[in-house]
């Protein structure tokens, strides 16, 4: 089940494991990414917590957890080459995976059609 947040995260839920990334639109808007900070494995998070940071040339952007739970995997390979974070690869580039406490957390998120309508 793929969902999107108003803050341009995507969340892909498989059983109780939710992979989280940022949308192609978000990557495009950020422009050149110069620094990424990802959370530590084992971190307990609440829905809406700022758990990762993307810094572009111009600005810093927080990445929020779409659901509460525990961070169980982090895609640190992304940090090796920030230029590989592109709009084209954004849907494949998950940032972290959460073992979620409550699938209900994702209910307020948008499906892809609604998200695409929001970004126009």
């Amino acid at each position: 089940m793929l969902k999107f947040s108003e803050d341009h995260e995507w969340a892909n839920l498989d059983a109780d494991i939710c992979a989280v990334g940022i949308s192609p639109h978000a990557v495009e808007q950020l422009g050149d990414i110069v620094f990424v900070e990802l959370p530590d494995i084992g971190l307990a998070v609440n829905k809406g917590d700022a758990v990762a940071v993307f810094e572009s040339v111009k600005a810093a952007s927080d990445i929020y957890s779409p659901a509460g739970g525990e961070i169980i995997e982090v895609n640190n390979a992304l940090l090796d080459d920030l230029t590989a974070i592109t709009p084209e690869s954004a849907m494949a580039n998950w940032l972290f995976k959460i073992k979620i406490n409550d699938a209900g957390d994702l209910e307020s998120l948008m499906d892809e059609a609604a998200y695409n309508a929001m970004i126009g």
Partner: protein
Amino acid sequence: METQRTPLYDFHIANGARIVPFAGWDMPVQYAAGIKAEHLATRDGAGLFDVSHMVQVELSGRGADAFFERLTPTDIGAVTEGRVRYSMLLNDAGGVLDDLMVARLDGRLHLVVNAGRATHDINHLHQNLDDTTKMDVHHDKALLALQGPNAARVLSSLGLDLDGFRFMDIRHFTLGAIPLVITRSGYTGEDGFEISMPAKSAVDIAEALLATGTVTLAGLGARDTLRLEAGLPLWGHELDETITPTMAGLRFALSKKRREAADFPGANIILDEFANGPKRRLVGLLASGARPVRDGTNLLHDGVDIGIITSGGFAPSLDRPAALGFVDTHLAHDGTILAAATRGGETPITVVNLPLVPHRYFRG
């Protein structure tokens, strides 16, 4: 408030610009290549920036020089025909109301002021105007900045004769039948030109420059990273009504004759700082690590608050984060290690001399 558009708005869209609101204008922050690529193309070749949001003001009449001197620390008599100076409007506390460029051409003074301060500046000028000076605001002109080591070659290839045209000169040129007023100046630290033209000719000129095949379109994002590396102040960051030119490293803009006369706004405060040093000084700052330290971050030394970052981001030519900020004068020395109070704790950050990237102006 409705945003304004420069005559090049459609041109920007057609060239893949991402438009953002800036100082009441819809401006290109970047094109498809992105800020880093546009920045590096400017340092290595030539970048073309639309700066038509900046406001062009003309002062004429027998009182124009005296009028200008009442508001600034510039010896305007020393700005001879065909020359340009960096200047600023000061308040009585010695603070900078705005910084600007002033040039003398055809016996008149031509000012270019910041877009974000234009309304303020025009009001300020109006309030101080007398009947010996006439002020005209040229809303019917566009302004393009062509910057970088290849900029002169680009203009020469279009038939402009740049012989004897040096940094901080201003001159009339024509391209085809289009009248241009060009200054050899800019906001990147590179050799370059600022080209004023009738608004209706802006697209033709921009297209002619692009058609040389050696010019990269660059947006406000690259303009900001370039000026940051060059250590050039941006009003609202390194300059404001509480910051003196002495604090901001602008002693060169305080003319000797005016210092001796002590007859400019805030002269007592500024001259005291000129002689004894200001409390804080503008410096370059290089943080350790890859994470940019942003505007507004406090700077600490032995746990004591001794400064603040005023512009912080990524410096593409240095390939690392870089910042500008104010630091207590006794710590404002190259190599001093401070701590930036970032969200995650304290990040070591080193004071460095400005500019971060050497200026390469053409002084002839």
